C-alpha cells in the first residue's frame, strides 16, 4: 500500500512538472517522472502481499504476476526511444531558435 501512495506522489510531481515547466528538456524530464510512477504502480500490484518472483525458488507459495513486468519492460523501451527522439529534436530546435523555451519558440512565427 505504501508504495502505491509513493507512486501517486511521484505521479503528482510529474504532472506538476508538466504543468509548470518552461522548456522542452524540463517537460521531457517530467514526462519521464510520470512514466516512472506508472512503472511503480504496475510493479506494485503485480507483487501484492509479498509474492515471490517466478524465476526459481525452492518452494513457491504465491507467485507474482509476471505479465505486468513483461509489459513494463516494453513500455520502458518505448519511453526510452521517445526520450532519445525528443532530445535529438531539441538539439535541432536549439540550433534554429537559440533557445529551448516553449514560449519563445512558439512566438517566433515565420509563416
Amino acid at each position, binding site marked *: 500500500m505504501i508504495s502505491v501512495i509513493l507512486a501517486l506522489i511521484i505521479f503528482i510531481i510529474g*504532472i506538476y512538472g*508538466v*504543468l*509548470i*515547466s*518552461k522548456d*522542452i528538456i524540463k*517537460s*521531457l524530464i517530467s*514526462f519521464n517522472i*510520470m*512514466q516512472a510512477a*506508472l512503472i511503480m*504502480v*504496475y510493479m506494485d*500490484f503485480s507483487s501484492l502481499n509479498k509474492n515471490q518472483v517466478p524465476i526459481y525458488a525452492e518452494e513457491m507459495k504465491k507467485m507474482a504476476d509476471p*505479465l*505486468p513486468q513483461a*509489459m513494463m519492460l*516494453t*513500455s520502458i523501451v*518505448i*519511453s526510452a*526511444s*521517445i526520450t532519445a*527522439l*525528443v532530445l535529438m*529534436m*531539441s538539439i*535541432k*530546435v536549439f540550433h*534554429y*531558435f537559440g533557445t529551448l523555451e*516553449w*514560449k519563445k*519558440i*512558439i*512566438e*517566433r*512565427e*515565420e*509563416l
Partner: protein
Amino acid sequence: MIYLIFIPIITAIFIYLIKNEKAIKYSIIINFIEILMILYLLKNVIENGSIKMIVGNYSEIVGISMELDLIGSILLLTTAFLWIIATLYSFEKHGKDYKFYFFLHFLRGTFYGLILSNDLFNMFIFIEIISLISAVLIIYKRDAYSLRAGVYYLLFNSIGMIFYLLGIVIIYINTGTMNIEGLMSVNLNGTMKMGIALVIASAGVKSAFFPVYNWLPKAHTAAPSTISALLSGILVKTGFIILIKIARYIDYNIYFEFLTIVGVTTAILGFVFAMSQKDVKSILAFHTVSQSGIILIGLAGVKTLQLGGFLHLINHALFKSLLFLTVGLIISKYNIRRVDKIRGVFKKLPVISVFVIIGMLSITGFPFTSGFVSKMIIKNYYHDNNLMAFIMQILNLGTMISFMKMSQIFFGTTHNKEIKESFKENISIIILGVITLVMGIFEMYTLSNYFDIGVYVGLKDFVVYGLYLIISYGFYTNFLKKEAKIFYKIRHTHLNFRNANVLLLTFVVLTIIFI
C-alpha cells in the same frame, strides 16, 4: 492475418538495406499484394464472421489476441488503398530518398497492427510506435517550423498516452486480463468507470477532441503533403479505433452524452478556427478537427448512429487526403501558402482544380457525394431532436463558409508562366478523386440493399445546398474578405505547451467526472 503486420515492416527493412531507387519503385507491388490479401480476408469475414487468433497459442487471458471483423477489414482496405495513393504521389518528390520509404512502409505495418490487435496493451505499443514514426516523418523537412511541431506533437501525445497506461492498469486490476473481451465480464463500478474514462481521454488526445486538439494543426501544416494526407486521413483515426474497439463490450450509455457534447464543441470550434486561418494547409488542418467532431457525434452512439460515424470516418479519410494531396501540388507549384495570394488556379491547373472541387463538394455534403451520405445518416437519427438537427445544419453552413474562402484560389489571374501540370504527377490524384466521387453512390446502393437504411436525395437537398452557397458567399464578402477583428484575434491565439497541458489535465478530469 499476422503476416499483414510483418510484410510491410520486412519490406521497409529491405528498402533501408538495399538503398536502391529501383527497389523503392518496385516496393509498390507489395502494397498491391497486401490489398489482395485484405480482399481475401474481407471475403472470409463476410462469409464466416469475424476471424480470431492468439499469437503463440497461449490461453486467451495472457496471450496477444487479434481479431478481424467487418469494421476492421474495411479500415484495413482504406488504409492500404490510401497508402498506395500516397506512395504513388510521393515518387515525384521523394523518389530517391530510401529513408522516407523506410518509415512510410514501417508506419503502414504498425497501423495494420493497431487495427488487428484486440489487446489493450498491444494497442498501446502500436500507438506509441505510430506516434514515434509519424514524428520522424513530420520533421522530414528539417526546418525550424517542422521541428517545433514535431517536438510538440511527440511530447504531447506521449503525455496523453500515459493516461492510457494508467487507465489500462485499473482495468487490468479489475478484470485480470488485458484482452478487450474482459471488459464484458465485469460490471461497471466506480473504479472500472475511471479506467474506461482514462482510456477514452487518451483516445481524445490522439483524435484531437476539443480541448486537446492543439497538436494537430501544427503537425499537419509542418509535415510534407503526403504525410499530412496520411495523418489526417488515417493516423488521426487512432483514437476512434480505440473507441470502436471498446464500444463493442461496454454499455455506451455511460459516455454517450459526454462524448456528444465534446463532439459538438469540437466540430463548431474547428470550423470557427478554420475560417480565420490564412494558410491553405492550416484551413484544411482545422477542418480535420471539425470533421473529427462530426465523426465523434456519430461514434458516441450505437447501431445506426455508429454506422453513420464510421462511414464518415472512411469518407473523411478519402476526401480529406484528396484535398491535402491536391493542395500540396498547388502549393509546390506556386511556392506560396497564403490563401489570399494564390490566384488563377483554374486557368493554370484545370485537372487539379477539378479534383479540388470534387473534394470540396464531398466535404460540404453535395447530394450524391460520400460526405452527404454519412452526414445524412447522422442527421436522420436526430430528426426528432430539434437542437441536434439545428447544430448539424450549422456545421454544414460553417464548413461551406470556410471552403468559400478557400475556393477564391480558383479565380483571378496569375502572371507566373512556369506553372504547368503533368499527367505523371496527377495520376494518383485522379485515381483517388474518381474513387471519392463514386463512393457516395456506392454507399447509397449498399446501405439500401444490405443494411435497410435508405438515404434518398430529393429536390429539397439541392435547394438547401444552393441556399447555403448563397448565404456563405454573403458571409464571406461581408466578414472574411475584409477580415473582421475577431478573426484576426482567433488566428493569433497560440497555446504554448504548458497551457495545452493544463487543458489536457482538465479534459482528463472532466472525462473522469462525467463518465
